[in-house]
């Protein structure tokens, strides 16, 4: 296999891997802090994606004016739709805002997702700390169905496109950069943005946990919740905030993913199943493991969908993630970086 083809698959795997890693990071954060298995996490990713759609729609709300000088083909005066933002901020800024609706949606998504996260934790998850894990799985599974259906009721069942800003449309020719022929190693700009964004978020979460006092307390709580409580620290409040942060991470992952894959209401469940596999492969409760496993599985998936590989092993592209998950779980029962004693019985 040529080096360029190899690199191309690595690059292709990165963006899916980033999405897996971001969702798995949030999942394992919730699990590590609250000890709750959250099956509604995929739904949070989906709500994030629909935040982007909402912002796009809000920005393109238009005022209709009649232009008497021109007529349409029926002879009626031509209707001209001008978005309000263009009226308010002038044409160029207005169009720019609409063009950049997906990145702008992050600003909208963060408070929304934090609120949803807090509401979920205080309203529902709180009552399930002491119930068995299967109960937690079931109630969040039910919640995921409910959230999905609400989104479906408002946005319909079809995929809704939300394009990336026009500055990022097109592809970047990596090959030329490192001495290959032009056109052998091209990669869409937006996927680069997505990967960098994911790295930024992951780094931010780790830095937050590692270098702030708040993060230190949270880590202490993850290690021994009871002792931290005995020291007079209200650990529950901090864990609620962590739940909100995890929801916001999933939401931002969803917002930025919309240009790659137009969302519909099932996108969360599709990602959730794989993300759970990712979390378990990485080791329940291990943040580094979740990120590592996310990228490994994303890249493996893209390698398995190469033509040469499929010809050698038919169907491998469909099953590689699950196959790897089974092998890892049988060989390393706690996952790649899992700690001892987590979810053992």
């Amino acid at each position, binding site marked *: 296999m040529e080096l360029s083809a190899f690199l191309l698959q690595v690059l292709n795997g990165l963006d899916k891997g980033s999405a897996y890693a971001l969702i798995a990071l949030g999942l394992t954060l919730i699990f590590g802090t609250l000890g709750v*298995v959250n099956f509604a996490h995929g739904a949070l990713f989906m709500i994030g994606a629909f935040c982007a759609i909402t912002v796009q729609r809000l920005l393109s709300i238009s005022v209709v004016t009649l232009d008497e000088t021109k007529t349409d083909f029926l002879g009626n005066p031509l209707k001209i739709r001008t978005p309000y933002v263009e009226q308010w901020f002038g044409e160029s800024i207005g169009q720019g805002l609409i063009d950049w609706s997906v990145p702008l949606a992050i600003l909208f998504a963060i408070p929304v997702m934090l609120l949803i996260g807090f509401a979920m934790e205080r309203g*529902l998850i709180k*009552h399930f700390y002491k*119930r068995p*894990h*299967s*109960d937690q*799985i*079931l*109630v969040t*599974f*039910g*919640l*995921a*169905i*409910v959230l*999905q*259906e*609400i989104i*479906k*009721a408002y946005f319909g069942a079809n995929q809704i496109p939300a394009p990336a800003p026009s500055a990022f449309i097109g592809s970047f020719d990596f090959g030329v950069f490192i001495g290959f022929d032009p056109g052998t190693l091209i990669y869409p700009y937006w996927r680069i943005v997505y990967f960098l964004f994911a790295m930024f978020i992951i780094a931010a979460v780790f830095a937050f946990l590692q270098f702030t006092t708040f993060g230190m307390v949270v880590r202490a709580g993850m290690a021994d919740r009871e002792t931290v409580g005995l020291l007079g620290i209200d650990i529950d409040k901090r864990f609620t905030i962590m739940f909100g942060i995890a929801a916001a991470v999933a939401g931002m992952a969803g917002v930025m993913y919309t240009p790659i894959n137009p969302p519909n209401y099932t996108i969360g*469940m599709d990602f959730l*199943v794989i993300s*759970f*596999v990712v979390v*378990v492969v990485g080791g*329940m409760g291990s943040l580094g493991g979740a990120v590592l496993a996310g990228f490994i599985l994303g890249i493996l998936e893209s390698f398995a969908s190469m033509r040469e590989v499929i010809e050698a092993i*038919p*169907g491998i592209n*469909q*099953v590689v*993630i*699950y*196959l790897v*998950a*089974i092998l890892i*779980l*049988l060989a390393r*029962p706690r996952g790649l970086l899992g700690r001892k004693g987590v*979810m*053992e*019985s």
Partner: protein
Amino acid sequence: MLGLSRNDFLMLLFVLVLVAAAPIILNPFPEGSNFAQFNAGYPDLMQRFVIFGIFAIGFNILFGLTGYLSFGHAAFLGAGSYAGVWMLKLLTINVIPAIIISTVVAGIFSLFIGFISLRRSGIYFSILTLAFAQMSFALAASVLTPITGGETGLQTALNDPRVLDGGATGGNIPAPSLFGLEMGHSWKVAVGDWIWTFNVGYYLCAFVLLIVFYIAIRIFRSPFGMMLKAIKSNSQRLSYTGISPRPYTLAAFVISGMYAGLAGGLMVAMDPLAGPERMQWTASGEVVLMSILGGVGTLVGPVLGAGIIKYFENIFSKINDGLLHQWFSFMPDGIENVIVGIIHPFVGKGWHLSLGLMFMLVVIFLPGGLVGGINGLFRRLFRRRSQ
């Protein structure tokens, strides 16, 4: 009687009466009345009630007794379906071999998957079963197309060999039958405005349901069932007494896999068609919903849960705005519109929303499911009276 305690025998009798009279009980509204569309007594739906009831009973033997939450049980239903269709194609259009072989095939398949998955417990077990089921689904839809018919599914055809029947060459594709009695055959009885449909396929399913329900009662009450309950309450302590839980959980896994295969076999016996979507994880999730809704670890619960979900899916989903307006037309216009507007998202295409809400409420407030809730209610009433 039949080796059952008095209470269990009464329960079996109750279920017997219920399934035998289902075509009458499920058709409470006269034909042509406003509520006729709430009648669930048509063969297709009744068959589905019973078949998914069998599936859920089997799932409950694993989850209810041992506490191992499998998210991949639909794979066995799918495997059973494929095996059943192949029997109908190759051997004979009689459904008996198809049903038997689909149970056996699902049993072997679940032995293989269970042997590997049961090395782990808790969420790891759930993920392993999920991974196996998703793999089966993906393979059935793509690479295994010669065996499974790919995404379009597998069905009987006119030029199938059907060794025992001697392969027809002309006429219609033969319908699955029980020694010549076609599954789709029904007798319609009209009593006044009511029309009751007695369907051959339904009664075959109901007969099978009674048998497997009886087996399930015996398993629940047997020493083996006690062992499974011990695994659920504390498998570590069980191993300290020198007993390995593995063989018991594996046996429970295979039994519940065979129940799923049997359900798959009955499904193709009613309608000789099998597609990969039967193996998808959403189908596995559905059987989890059924068991939880009805009541995990209870005997009747899963059947009840299966009935409720299938009723929602088929009847509740057909309520549309026109009907709502018709029902509330006695109210003043403004109020009517408000009420219809409130109910609208929960019915028709939004039936999943009501289902999800109901499911959440059950998990939050009734950990024993609907049956557990009803039992608790009775116990409370009874206790009060005795005081």
